[in-house]
């Protein structure tokens, strides 16, 4: 693991710098998974299995990058592995009397299991990582340079967010997904195939989540281990609720979570030893807080797709 920032030169300035770097590095998988989950949930299905998809994506990207020597082929492989898992979830979760949350939990176990099983041989070798874009070359401080070396995947994710917002607003397919997610009966009356729309949404969401996995193993932290995701896929699902199913807000929320994740290491690097584990837990505490703050028995969330989590 590369250190987020070198504290000796920057002193306390290292903390905000590390958080900024964390936003862009640690935020990338959150961003891809939450955008994927956003597409899925807009169609009225929940895919908790994106945690498994993230791991499978990370493993596939790392393995293919190692085997072919091309990290971009690895990214593609991560997406394709996501599509595979998405097809399973999309089909299973739409069978009669099947609950999508239950299928999602099964898919977490399946996805991570298959990633661990196939990924065993790739823990040791080192695969070529993705190239980075150096935005920090103006500075002579290596810590700044390191912090501002951002991944093209991050740029891609930032571009997808507004694109997705536009897609939901101004394309026929976007309207179809929203119609199916909000009122399947209305969609059916308009002759829209609910099964197909949801299947494609789940698959597209899984594709993005797979790419999120690639950013884990090929960019930051840039290795393949079994503990690489540490629940980020599940947190991203919570994040979609926090973002009120709005792709642009998914972007801001992902940056927030990425920053929170960097808080612990950043404070540790400036010499704060007490409460180190507490700060490392920041993203989890944030998830819990968001859940508490956004949920109320007395009011429904704004923006929630009407058919989300229902049987039809």
């Amino acid at each position: 693991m590369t250190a987020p920032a070198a504290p000796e030169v920057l002193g306390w300035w290292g903390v905000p710098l590390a958080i900024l770097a964390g936003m862009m590095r640690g935020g990338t998988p959150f961003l891809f998974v939450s955008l994927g989950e956003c597409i899925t949930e807009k169609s009225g299905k929940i895919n908790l299995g994106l945690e498994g998809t993230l791991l499978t994506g990370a493993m596939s990207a790392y393995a293919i990058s190692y085997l072919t020597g091309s990290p971009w082929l690895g990214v593609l492989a991560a997406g394709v592995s996501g599509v595979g898992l998405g097809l399973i979830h999309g089909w299973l979760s739409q069978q009669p009397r099947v609950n999508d949350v239950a299928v999602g939990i099964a898919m977490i176990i399946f996805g991570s299991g298959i990633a661990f099983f196939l990924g065993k041989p790739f823990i040791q070798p080192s695969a070529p990582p993705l190239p980075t874009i150096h935005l920090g070359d103006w500075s002579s401080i290596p810590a700044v340079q390191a912090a501002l070396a951002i991944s093209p995947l991050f740029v891609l994710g930032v571009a997808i967010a507004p694109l997705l917002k536009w897609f939901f607003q101004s394309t026929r397919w976007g309207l179809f997904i929203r119609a199916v997610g909000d009122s399947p009966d209305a969609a059916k009356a308009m002759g829209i195939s609910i099964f197909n729309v949801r299947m494609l949404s789940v698959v597209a969401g899984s594709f993005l989540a797979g790419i999120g996995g690639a950013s884990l193993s090929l960019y930051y932290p840039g290795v393949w281990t079994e503990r690489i995701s540490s629940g980020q896929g599940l947190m991203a699902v919570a994040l979609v609720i926090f973002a009120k199913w709005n792709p642009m807000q998914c972007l801001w929320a992902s940056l927030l979570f990425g920053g929170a994740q960097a808080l612990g290491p950043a404070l540790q690097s400036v010499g704060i030893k007490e409460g180190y584990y507490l700060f490392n837990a920041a993203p989890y505490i944030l998830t819990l807080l968001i859940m508490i703050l956004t949920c109320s028995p007395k009011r429904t969330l704004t923006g929630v797709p009407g058919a989300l989590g229902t049987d039809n």
Partner: protein
Amino acid sequence: MTITSPSLNVSTIAAPPELQIVNMTKRFGSLVALDNVSLNLKPGTFHALLGENGAGKSTLVKCVMGFYRADQGEILIDGNPRAIASPRDAHHYGIGMVYQHFTSVPAMTVAENLVLSRYDSSTLINWKQEMEQLNDFMNSAPFQVPLNLPIAQLAAGQKQKLEILKQLYLKSKILILDEPTSVLTPGEADEVLGLIKEQVNAGLLSVLLITHKFREVTSFTEEVTVLRKGKLAGHGSVKELAIADMAEMMMGERREIKEVAKTPYANPQPVLQFEGIQANKDNGVEAVSGVSLTVHSGEIVGIAGVSGNGQKELVEVLAGQRSPTSGTVRVNGEPYQATRAEMFKHKVFALPEEPLRNACVPHMSVAENMALRTFDRAPQAKGILLIWKAIRQTAQGLIQQFSVKTPSTETPVGNLSGGNVQRTVLARELSEDHINLLIAANPCFGLDFAAVEFIHSQIVEARNRGVAVLLVSEDLDELLALSDRIVVISSGQFVYESAIAEADFGAIGRSMAGH
């Protein structure tokens, strides 16, 4: 996906085509839902399709729309036999249907819903251009709905108007309207049907109106076809038929509408008193803003209002389904929180709207649902054990007494028709000997004549026995017929109150509209 490729483009034809349904039969297993029914919808006419629930009206139009495939019979359009396999095919022949349930997507705006409903819209939506076209369409339409509001913020009346506008936007020439006025105020219903009638008179539309309101048949339609138990029961010109004739065709027997006479109650006591009730909607916006009312024993107080003005939330507060943000409720002078113990003590009963959702457990049996108030007391329970024999016996008695049509006491209540679900709830709520307070919300929504008459007579009988009744309804005729006192709710406040004898229809209508 279509079997036939429709050859004519309706948008270029000004006059509506002639629609003939010839000898149509549709079976579901052993049940014959439609038996050799024919109907002729002449171009530019307003045609009523009358029938009780289960008479086959919906089956007939669903065959026309391509939802069902008829077992026998054919559909002729302008004299040519046409196969209609899906609503999309029906659209190609210029036939559009307005469903009883709204088919707009609640989270989307009116404009988005209209664009979405089009079968031929392009992949990318140019909103600037679309909005211009939609504005032009709205300006030329018989009635208007604001384009930029999300459906969830529209009142029921506006939603119904939108459903009709959608068909006009799709350039449908033959409109099938499935009980379109059930959620409208009488004024709105007359307005909407009147404007459609103008289009029909101008020769732009043909309309097939499914209804069981005779008033609509006599004031708007020219021809009527009556179905009974899946068979054609009669057909004719509205001018030549009396209401009694049509009722006879519908029900198979001549029946006078019997009214239960109200008898004055000797000793009225205040039963339900609420003061300064405020409550929020699900989204946290205030729905009820400080209302106070007292209902006495032996009195029916009607609350009129267009749906979405806070009456739903008020009923939910009184029924214990929603906590008020402020205000007090008292029953028999004691504070009332709608707990099970208090309901039992004060004998409070409720007929909420959408009974299957608000008053039943759909997957549980009729007997279990009928026992929901009493299952934990003797004789239906002994300690923590349920006495199933007693529960079933009580249910059998109630099924007979309230003529619930159910195959058995063990049938899940969700499998019954709407009218019978309502009867099941009615049986549970009205069978008790000592009822103090009855809260009813839209108890007759979507029910047929016989069921409505039955429920009305039960409510009046309860009142005559000294029950205090709070009746919330969107059907003004119902309120005027039953209430002793009428209150109008608008934007979460009571804006009009009057004894029924002094009630002014015009003033009620105006205050409902918020003036």
